[in-house]
């Protein structure tokens, strides 16, 4: 398990000595971070599991105010796409 980047609920259940359904309850309660691969399949990042075991899962805190900074240049390195040409309206 040490080198696996993602764990299944069954992996976590084995490691903690609890049932897989309890693991799913922890996931659904938001206590154990997990990734929904599909509607019914979850994977737990190994890093998240380590934080969980160590009791280091964080609750949200208000972010600090930063100083005045340059505005991010969002999308400035992108070439804008070209729209298809619209057919000209036929003259009557």
């Amino acid at each position, binding site marked *: 398990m040490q080198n696996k980047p993602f764990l299944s609920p069954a992996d976590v259940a084995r490691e903690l000595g609890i049932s897989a359904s309890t693991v799913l309850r922890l996931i659904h309660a938001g206590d154990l971070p997990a990734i929904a691969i599909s509607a019914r399949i979850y994977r737990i990042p190994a890093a998240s599991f380590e934080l969980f075991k160590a009791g280091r899962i964080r609750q949200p805190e208000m972010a600090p105010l930063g100083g005045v900074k340059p*505005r991010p240049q969002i999308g400035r390195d992108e070439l804008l796409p070209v729209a298809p040409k619209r057919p000209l309206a036929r003259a009557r």
Partner: protein
Amino acid sequence: MATKVELRQYIGTLSAILWNYGASFPVPTLDAYSDGEVGFAITAELSGAADPRPAVLELTETWAPEGRGQYRRVEYAYEFVEFPLGRRRAFHRHDPDYFAREFGVVVHEHCEERIGQPACSHYYGLPIDAYEAIRRFLSAWGQPTLLGCSELRCMDQAA
């Protein structure tokens, strides 16, 4: 619409989510820009495979003042570059006037099954927030399946 306090709470929640997935990043702040707008930029490295470098998740938003202490989100870029699997996914809102005039939409997406070799430069998409972006990025993270770029609708005439 949001106040500065609400934006700081929003950033704090995003920060906690990323931390709890084992991401590494500097403490994010709500920054002020010289034109009166505010915003934030988070660049987080994900844990796990790190060859040639770790996967990177970036969240950038700009909010413009609307009066009465309220701000409206005007631009965003949510980026996920998964270097170990050599692919990229992104959700953008920028140059809204151009996109609205040319395509009738204000947001777009990027999708590259192989970084640097997109089948299309811009794809149609729907507006999302950073929570949804994180959810979508992480659902793809480390998975051997394709991102699904071929299922998206291309904007670019040249593609």
